[in-house]
């Protein structure tokens, strides 16, 4: 545990001592709950259609695959015409692209970012490394199977997959969402203990709350 995260007493500028516990003060700790769909099937269908056509990707390149996402913004591939955008903050994104190998150290940041995204959220695993470790299958610090730690909606194979493959993967994801099967966030909430146990098995210095909203 890092020193700045420990519980301690701080003297404020007005001379009053107060207790600071960063892990509890800065985050909401309540575990995630399963959020039901809208009451009406028609409304939920409309929402799902809008969600599918408005994928906001969290701009967090976790590995080398992030280099394949940049061409998607350029004139040649132009993902914007499919309603795909990049957002800089997890609060506004609903799609997390795990781009390539994921080291244990990055996994920690990924979990924090993932948990801060609002509920219908999707994860795309990009490249072989997220599927079975790829060329890092015997690495000491790279996870070999993403779906042990986060609920994954779509895997895109390849090392690296071309931008065209990415676009095809996003289209597949859209089909899944439109069919109402993109319930990764609820799955995460349902099997929260299982996911947390898996995460804690590989992240040894767990210095964050169990759930950080």
């Amino acid at each position, binding site marked *: 545990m890092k020193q700045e995260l420990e519980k301690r007493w701080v003297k404020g500028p007005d001379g009053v001592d107060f207790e600071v516990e960063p892990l509890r003060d800065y985050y909401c700790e309540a575990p995630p709950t399963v959020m039901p769909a809208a009451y009406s099937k028609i409304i939920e269908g409309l929402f799902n259609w*809008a969600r599918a056509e408005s994928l906001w990707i969290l*701009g967090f390149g976790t590995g080398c695959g992030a280099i394949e996402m940049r061409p998607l913004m*350029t*004139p040649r591939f*132009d993902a914007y015409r499919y309603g795909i955008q990049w957002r800089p903050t997890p609060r506004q994104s609903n799609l997390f692209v795990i781009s390539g190998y994921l080291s244990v150290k990055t996994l920690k940041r990924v979990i924090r970012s993932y948990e801060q995204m*609002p509920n219908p959220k999707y994860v795309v695993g990009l490249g072989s490394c997220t599927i079975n470790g790829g060329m890092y299958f015997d690495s000491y610090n790279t996870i070999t199977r993403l779906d042990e730690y986060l609920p994954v909606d779509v895997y895109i194979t390849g090392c690296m997959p071309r931008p065209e493959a990415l676009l095809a993967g996003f289209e597949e994801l859209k089909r899944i969402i439109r069919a109402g099967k993109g319930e990764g*966030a609820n799955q995460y909430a349902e099997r929260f203990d299982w996911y947390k146990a898996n995460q804690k098995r590989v992240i040894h210095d767990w210095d964050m709350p169990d759930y950080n909203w």
Partner: protein
Amino acid sequence: MSFEWIKIPYALLTLFIVANYGFLLTAVMAKIAARVGRRHGIPVWQNYLDLIKNYGLRSSITHGVMFYLGPVFRLTGGVGLLMFVPTIYGSVMFSNMSFAGDLILALYFVFFGSLGMALGAGESGHPYSAIGVTRGLSQVTAAELPFALAVYAVAVQYQTLSVTEIVAAQQGGILNWTLFTNPIAVAAAMLSFLGSMMRPPFDVVLAPQEIPIGPPTEYHSSYLALMQTNRAIFPIAKIVIYMNLFFGGAASWPVFFLKVFLIYLVSVIVGVVFPRFRVEQSIRWFLIWAVPLGVIAIVIA
């Protein structure tokens, strides 16, 4: 004078038309900017999709009361601005509450949104929000200065503060527009216009899709949707003011659509041509180029 209740549905109708026009127009402008970069750009209905999606998000959190009120204030700024100027000149239906407010009120509303945003974003406690708010307020203040000067020049020119009377004075031919009767004031105001449209080269405050997204870093789901709605209404409302003050107003909806489109296009053209300014550069730019023009306009008037 008795209040006519029929004005309320009329005002809502105006708001509805303007909001939809705003959504389509921002998308069309994004498409134009994309075409300049040889991209196809977003579909024109993309803004509606984003809006529905953001309202459809299931979870949301709050950081306090001001966090709720920030987007509301922002929307109030846009809607208020729209309500107190005559959208369509001479039309009973779409003049809204313009009898009640004058130019000074409109100036307040232009600033109101940014202040509300600052309060809300400050409450979220995110460092990027604080940076964004600082940048935003300093830039808006610098951009507002020439606009205020130009507005006073125009007010002195027509000897009135009522928007309706200013529009009335500009009727009867293109050469009666303030654009030709007081070009220096219009020039100052148009430079300020570039700064307040949040497009390049003055968009560092609210650079979407980048790490320092600015004030709305913590905003999500419905809050963000509310702000998106405002992003559609506010530019149109602002352009309506410009149109009324400087470009002769609009007597019918087609003229309104055309003029708003053209005025918006000015900022888009500048935006695709010039790269982004840093905040201190843009403030310096406003103080050096725009403010002296405004001062000259007042001195001449």
